[in-house]
């Protein structure tokens, strides 16, 4: 019996991961009168039903009475030949029942009787649907963090636990955030997708860029959880961005963003030593960087030429300069510091200022760099910031001021509990 349960469980888990959001979005589009909660409940119920029905090998009609599924959709090993279609059909029937309950058996429009959509076909219908959903998540009344969470939930199909881990939040925190977001989704009919496509939402492209950028950054931070989750987040961001370009909805900023993420993803493998230690840029083995990916990123950066440069253009330019340098010392730090200055003018904030100061230090402007960094320490919200204190420790070390470096490293150790970061600081600290 156990032997039989495992493949079913695996199939259902995989199916959940790849199709949960898709099925929800199709149902929301086909049944605009049914609220999101009911749709989600129905999909959850269908997955639970699949687990028992497929494992027990029973005909689903016996577990879900109101559900006339043709028996030929069940193969001999009890997992149906078209699993997403099975789930969709169960959900669709449930939707029809809900509508009947609410509408006293009014005749149903023809679209509800149609055949199930093709979930895995080569047609781009599903990608369109997914992009539609992505643009719906970019609602201007939601803060970027909420937009990111609902994108991860409904577009990327991550479970709450994975979202919590990826964003460094508790599951409870994500649930509360989703609870409020769902209210908005319901009241504003956020996911009521326009069958005409994206045209009505195209002005949200900059917000969509931001969502993708934030998802990638969360995945790229070494501190935000286990490597597998992190890489999955980065991949998701890359896929979404590529879909926008492939389906012709992108602009030059989309290309710059895609280039930026590729330049960074190309260096993913160099960030950890063979023994799993976090490595700073100057310690990384550049031969481990993914050269073909860097070349591809360069192509997209060239295609992103524009008279109107976005912050992604500047960040991609910085990443390109890192990727094309043959060594840390041989990096064009002067140009990097100038690009950071442009970024800073575009979006003045202490976090960009920190990066600007570090680049300025390596470009030779040491005095000015320390002046900025010490200045940032006076800002209460920056004073306890791990990366600022770590940077000061490292730069004082390079200046031969071990005593001051030690002070900053000691402060840094109070500001992070992440084992990789703690080990990193211990390794940098003077004995």
């Amino acid at each position, binding site marked *: 019996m156990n032997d039989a349960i495992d493949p079913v469980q695996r199939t259902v888990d995989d199916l959940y991961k790849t199709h949960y959001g898709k099925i929800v979005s199709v149902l929301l589009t086909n049944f605009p009168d049914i609220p999101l909660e009911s749709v989600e409940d129905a999909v959850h119920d269908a997955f639970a039903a699949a687990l028992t029905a497929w494992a027990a090998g029973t005909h689903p009609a016996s577990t879900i009475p109101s559900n006339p599924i043709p028996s030929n959709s069940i193969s001999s090993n009890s997992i149906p030949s078209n699993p997403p279609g099975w789930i969709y059909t169960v959900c669709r029937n449930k939707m029809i029942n809900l509508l009947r309950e609410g509408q006293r058996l009014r005749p149903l429009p023809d679209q509800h009787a149609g055949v199930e959509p093709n979930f895995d076909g080569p047609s781009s219908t599903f990608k369109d649907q997914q992009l539609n959903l992505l643009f719906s998540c970019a609602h*201007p009344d939601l*803060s970027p963090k909420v937009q990111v969470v609902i994108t991860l939930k409904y577009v990327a199909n991550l479970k709450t636990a994975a979202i919590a881990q990826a964003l460094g939040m508790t599951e409870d925190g994500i649930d509360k955030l989703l609870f409020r977001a769902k209210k908005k989704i319901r009241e504003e009919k956020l996911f009521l997708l326009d069958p005409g496509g994206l045209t009505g939402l195209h002005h949200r492209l900059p917000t969509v860029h931001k969502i993708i950028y934030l998802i990638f950054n969360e995945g790229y931070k070494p501190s935000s959880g286990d490597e597998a989750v992190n890489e999955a987040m980065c991949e998701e961001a890359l896929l979404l961005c590529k879909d926008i370009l492939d389906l012709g909805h992108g602009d030059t900023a989309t290309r710059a963003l895609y280039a930026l993420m590729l330049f960074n993803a190309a260096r993913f493998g160099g960030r950890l030593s063979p023994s799993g230690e976090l490595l700073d840029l100057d310690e990384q083995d550049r031969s481990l960087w993914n050269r073909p990916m860097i070349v591809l990123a360069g192509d997209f950066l060239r295609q992103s030429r524009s008279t109107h440069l976005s912050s992604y253009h500047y960040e991609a330019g910085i990443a390109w300069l890192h990727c094309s340098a043959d060594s840390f010392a041989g990096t064009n730090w002067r140009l990097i510091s100038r690009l950071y200055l442009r970024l800073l003018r575009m979006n003045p904030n202490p976090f960009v200022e920190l990066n600007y100061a570090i680049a300025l230090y390596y470009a030779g402007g040491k005095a000015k760099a320390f002046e900025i960094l010490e200045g940032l320490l006076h800002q209460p*919200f920056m004073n306890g910031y791990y990366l600022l204190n770590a940077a000061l420790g490292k730069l004082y070390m390079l200046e031969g001021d071990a005593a001051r470096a030690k002070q900053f490293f000691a402060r840094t150790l109070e500001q992070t509990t992440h084992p990789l970061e703690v080990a990193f600081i211990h390794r940098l600290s003077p004995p």
Partner: protein
Amino acid sequence: MEKFLLLIREDLQFRAKMTPADFKHNLQIMTKWVEWMAQSGNFLNADPLTDKGAYIGQNYVLSDGPFIEAKESISGFILIQAESLDQAVSFAQLCPLVLNGTAAVEVRTIMNMNMDDSNE
């Protein structure tokens, strides 16, 4: 984009009794929140306030302003830019001090004097 002032309101007497470790912890979780708003290009400026100040009216200066006694007084501010008041509220709801119940946030829209409007 419009500008909004998020006023952090908390019980200053309660805050004065906080251990340095708790205070530090609160600053750090606030930094993370601020970092997110900076990454998304919404953060403009922010600072916490000490509880030293004065209260000035036409005929008086109170050195211990009523803000000390009040249950909820302004303990810091965050200036952000956002698409709408709704979005500014959505930011405020994720303030870690709101989430852990130590503070409330008042969201106010910064008045924008539009030259075109004044000509109408």
